[in-house]
């Protein structure tokens, strides 16, 4: 992958993807993960870097509407795909119901797991509008939280589900179709 001269001359690859509704094109080192692409290249630091081995879920984003741990996804492999990060969750002026419910239930303490939690929960609620506690636990199994003890998070997800059923419009990820 690298030339003998050192690490500065890495092989790169072109990728074109949609991030939070906006088309982005760039060349990235072939070794970079989707997490590197988002944080280092696009400055989207709301996606958190923690264990770098797929254990903690802090780097969870949506890839074609499915939650993935971005530290385990090679950047080159997302060419042509659609990515949503925490920065793309809220409607233009306000908060997504999940974000609102995380505030109301104090489900964010240090906040480092929160982006990943919200995206895992969003993937669940987008498919399962009225999840059981068990379904919530299963959907958030991969997301570690060291602060809250999880109960507030479960309550927040249930509350958000109610809000989204009552006001489906509030769930639109990003406002402007024109970005695409």
């Amino acid at each position, binding site marked *: 992958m690298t030339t003998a001269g050192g*690490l500065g001359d890495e092989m790169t690859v072109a990728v074109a993807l949609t991030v939070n509704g906006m088309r982005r094109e760039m060349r990235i080192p072939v070794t970079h993960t989707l997490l590197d692409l988002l944080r280092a290249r696009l400055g989207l630091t709301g996606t958190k870097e923690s*264990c*770098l081995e797929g254990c903690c879920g802090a780097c969870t984003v949506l890839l074609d509407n499915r939650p993935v741990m971005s530290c385990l996804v090679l950047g080159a492999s997302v060419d042509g795909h659609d990515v949503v990060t925490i920065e793309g969750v809220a409607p233009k002026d306000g908060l997504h119901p999940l974000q609102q419910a995380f505030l109301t239930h104090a489900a964010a303490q240090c906040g*480092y797991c929160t982006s990943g939690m919200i995206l895992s929960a969003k993937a669940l609620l987008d498919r399962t509008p009225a999840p059981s506690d068990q379904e919530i*636990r299963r959907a958030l199994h991969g997301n*570690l939280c060291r602060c809250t003890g999880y109960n507030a998070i479960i309550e927040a997800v249930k509350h958000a589900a109610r809000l989204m059923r009552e006001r489906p419009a509030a769930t639109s990820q990003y406002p402007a179709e024109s970005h695409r």
Partner: protein
Amino acid sequence: MRAVGQSLPRLDGFSRVTGRLVYGSDIAVPGMLHGVVVRSVHPHARILQIDTRETAGMSGVVAVLTANDVPARRFGGMVKDETVFAVDRVRFAGQPVAAVAAISREIAEEAARRIEVRYDPLPAVEDPLVALRDDAPLVHEDWASLAAHPNVQRRGNVCGMATIVRGDPERAFREADEVYEDRFTTASVHQAYLEPRAALAQWDGGDRLTVHANTQLPFAIQEALAEILDIPAGRIRVVVTGIGGGFGGKLRLGVEHIAALLARRAGRPVRVVLDMAGEFWAGSPRHPAIITLRTAVRRDGTIVAKTADAVLDAGAFSGASPVLPSVATLVLAGPYRIPHLHIEVRAVYTHKQNFGSYRAPTGPQCAFASESQMDMIARRIGLDPFEFRLRNILRDGDEGPTGQPLRGVALETALRRAAAAIGWGARSAPGRGKGIACGWWTTTAGPSGVYVKMHPDGSVTLATGCAEIGTGALTGAAQVLADELALDPRDITITSADTLTTPYDYGAQGSRSTFNVGNACRRAGAELRRQLVAVAAEMLEANASDLELQDGYVAVRGVPARRVSYADVSQTALGRGGGLLASGTYVAPPTPYDAGCVSGHFYPAFHSPSFHAHAAEVEVDSETGHVRILRYVVAQDVGLAINPLLIRGQIEGGVVQGVGQALFEQLPYEGGQPQAHSFSDYPLPRIEDAPPVESILLESPSTAGPHGARGVGEPPVIEPPAAVANALEDAAGVRVTSLPITEEKIFRALGGRPTV
């Protein structure tokens, strides 16, 4: 409406749910280099040679440092036993021996791998009981010549010792009806915050340094950096970033000094973000402990005497260890009336990483021993464990174990409420059982200062030197300030933890933030209110004593139409005297105690102590030894619940951390090497491990806290291991005296044999 007592969402919540909060590992500046630490692979070895030639010649590498390149200074909290990099010998696997700064993290990591260190391995002391022997190798052979605080009792590998001796324990044991001796051991557990320690260091004009770091104690870091870098503290600015979890693991220097030294050498900003291996190899996880308790009781269930001999594994450097034996003695004595005590706790050097302050340091280990033994004794003498506790607990007007007078002790209420909520006395289904445990803890004192100013629009800024580690403690402090000024708390903007621009604060530690910052807010708020009313009195042509504050207005009492808005007063004040600006400082009054009964103490009494009781119902799978926690109850005296929502968050989170410590978390060592390197081999409680938690908030006011509040944050993590161990015995008839209470231990205790 009064803000104190309201379950308000945290004021800084927006940035936390939108991903906008900038954490230590997010912050970046142009031209920034990336620093990586090279660590010892041996627990104890002589360094023969460090060859950095290949690294120094690599393209993209800007600075390489070893002990030869940094000021030869020893630093440390109570004992100056640390150096930035190992000098001549390494004392634990994971100790920094060199560091590299390069234009990318990848290059820095590769450069670090290419630094060749040749070692001559030496025998390592892993077991603290071995380290205590007279013939044990000394971890610091020059211990006697190290600078140290005069109160530290130390000798050889003992780097701190504290005792409580009251009454005549020897005689009490001779005359007692029954004497029980039990031994307990606990493994180390890691804070396992999701964000590793991180720091960005920038030198400005050569002799002034700014460090952004995810630290809990910016002022302590500033002081430590001054000592290490040999420059005046006033030239160092430490700014706290967002902190992705701390729990005591971000109190002491993490990587701030290494970033600063690399940046000085490189002449460019340097950011160091640890990897998880660095966290597990060289963090400050909880002390492993070996605790022997002897307790003498009368046949009627009255405890007459207790001795404790506890050994805390300090690791290779003293860190917080000289201070913590004192804290341990108070937990080991327990929240009980015991006339005769001999409690002794020693912290001992070994060739391991520095064990330190994890949330309620020494609390869970000592409470596991003490509260497990309470149940064991109750069963031996045929008393109900709940009744046995009720016969011995501290009550209003009692003295604590070191003679501190106690007022407003709500422990009996806590026990009764927890027992009622778990259904104590009603038999559980087969395979299920209930356990109870109780305890007490401190509200750490130390100075807090705030600045408060009113803007021309009538809103307020609160500037505090206390960091917000995620608990929401500063929202609680702002609620206290809001009431002083009759403001909506949402009209208060908090700026926090910058050593250059905010007043000194003892820091986000020890369950102290809301309590002490809140008290400073009361004083600053009172002063700002005085200024506000004085200017309004001129504007309204009224006596200041006739004015009152009402929802953003200053009004004449009884004549609500005669009023001026805060905005108008604030703008007028700008022209007349330069504006509304106040400060407030607070130091908790000292807690009296009997100095004659303690030695080696840094913490002879618990300030504004909180009392609490926990109860758990568990189900045990006798085939596998798996424990499921069905329900968990916490009854905790919080003095006054400033923000019940956020307090429940502390309780629920603390319980789940405590459950992890009870059942499966551990950071074992083998051959001097830590056996966990990442979250993949350090199991953490996941969402399915979290039991439902019922939080019962009791309000028995303290005399010193804002509106009677007591410290809240640490206590919830203290009792879970004991409560779970006690419930396990009720459910399955087995008693496990070592933490964690793994499935394997339960399986073996049940008489099972591995089939593999």
